């Protein structure tokens, strides 16, 4: 006897008016795939054949074909970049970021957080490139009021994939001492931990998100007390996944840390220059299987 017939046979079918109508009681599984890159640094072409570590690897064209293949396999895919899209090859010197955002939009990136090198061509040029490509940047702790970017950057975004709500917010690194003040102008930096606590709680409880993802350009870890992804994970709650950048950290596998409430937070970062793509699959199900949130390599 399956569950549906059991309930009907029990004479409790009237309960359906309380919410069973919209509810499919048959077993349902849903996979959400998150693809991510960081610190691609304008590496449009693959590395040259004489590169010491990754000859002929990487490049936007290979990445585009991989994304296409993975989106075909699972349409419930979201693609994020954790910042420092710009600076590192002549493409940026000559085109000031236009090509990077054009191609990222074309290959299906949903959003990126703002890295310190996103300021390198100035806010006016960045604005032009955002508007021309309708590119989505998410930044929660930079305040762009009274700058060229005012009104163009979202504090968070919520993506709905077959009823699963994925809340995404972005964090950027302190600009003072890192970026030329003439480039960031009146952009204000706010404490990432305070902002992360507020937004992640809002996404989880007010907005009913099933997953909360932080795309961070804070850096993986520091020897001093500077705020990093590892510190952020320990000092907050309500974040499920931190996609990192800035320190060019190439993790063999994602880290799982305990947050403030002892719950799991996943942190991942995949080096630099777009040689690697990180892929994390979240499996949702309405069956009453024991919830085993351990992370397995596939």
């Amino acid at each position, binding site marked *: 006897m399956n569950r549906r017939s059991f309930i009907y046979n029990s004479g409790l079918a009237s309960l359906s008016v309380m919410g069973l109508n919209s509810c499919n009681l048959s077993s349902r599984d849903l996979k959400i795939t998150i693809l991510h890159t960081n610190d691609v640094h304008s590496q449009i072409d693959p590395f040259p054949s004489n590169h010491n570590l990754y000859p002929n690897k990487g490049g936007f064209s290979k990445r585009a074909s991989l994304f296409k293949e993975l989106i075909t396999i699972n349409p419930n895919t979201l693609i994020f970049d954790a910042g420092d899209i710009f600076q590192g090859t002549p493409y940026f010197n000559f085109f000031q970021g236009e090509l990077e955002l054009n191609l990222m939009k074309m290959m299906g990136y949903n959003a990126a957080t703002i890295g310190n090198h996103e300021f390198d061509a100035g806010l006016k040029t960045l604005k032009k490139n955002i508007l021309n490509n309708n590119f989505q940047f998410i930044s929660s702790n930079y305040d762009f009021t009274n700058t060229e970017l005012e009104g163009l950057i979202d504090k968070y975004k919520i993506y709905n994939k077959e009823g699963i709500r994925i809340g995404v917010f972005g964090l950027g690194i302190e600009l003072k001492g890192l970026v030329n003040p003439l480039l960031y102008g009146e952009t204000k930096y706010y404490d990432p931990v305070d902002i992360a606590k507020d937004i992640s709680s809002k996404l989880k409880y007010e907005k009913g998100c099933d997953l909360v993802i932080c795309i961070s350009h804070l850096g993986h870890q520091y020897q001093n007390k500077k705020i990093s992804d590892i510190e952020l994970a320990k000092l907050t709650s309500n974040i499920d996944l931190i996609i990192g950048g800035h320190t060019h950290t190439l993790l*063999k596998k994602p880290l799982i840390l305990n947050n403030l409430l002892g719950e799991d937070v996943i942190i991942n970062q995949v080096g630099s220059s777009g040689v690697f793509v990180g892929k994390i699959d979240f499996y949702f199900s309405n069956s009453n299987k024991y919830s085993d949130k351990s992370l397995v390599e596939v």
Partner: protein
Amino acid sequence: MNTFFKIIFLFVAFHLVGCSDLNLNSISYSRIELTGPESIAVSDVINIYKDSIDVSLDNIIGFSDQLYTKGDFNSKRFNSTLGNLIADILFIQSDSVFKFQENKNIDFVIQNHGGIRASLPKGEVKLTDAYKILPFENEIVIVEMGGESLSEIVSFLKNETTPHPFSGLTINGNEVLVQNKPIKPSNKYYIAINDYLLTGGDNMFFFNKNTEVYRLGYSLRNAFIDYTKSKLYLSSKIDNRFIRNE
């Protein structure tokens, strides 16, 4: 309510909670190295941009006898092959421009570690490598600093986790020499840096204590390109310019 209906009710209530939303059951990950096929559509767009760059980035500007990186330092000999090469090039090039423009010599160079962004490949050095190693549009500036303010710079360099390249300066434990002479607090020193550092970049806020700034109008990358074209062969090694006590 009898016990039977209590059990039924609990069972149904459990399913009402469970079925209205899906639960996260498991998570898997993988790290994919990009070796695979290209996307024709994307390659077409890239080629349009590539063809419109009007300098020949594949032109060979020199040769390198080996691979040089900024990461081959150790904690005691706190300097790297590529860092030394670039700092020495900046010294030679900016000194000659400063001499020409102001009839003065520079005393030393400081270049931030983070300003060097790629390795120098062994063999042919192409124009595109100059862009990758020194991608920033930063210009060389000469700051005039009093000798009394150099100790702050030296202690900053000693406490950093990565070695900022320099040339013209030697730090051996507590012994600090500029042009092989001890620092005199009353002297003026001319230090070649870049305009990013002048704005407090990489937390080098001490350069705003300068008593004069000279802008050479000469970029780091052009200094590297000019030197490479003039010498043709590049070579470097780790040396004793920065020895740290452990």
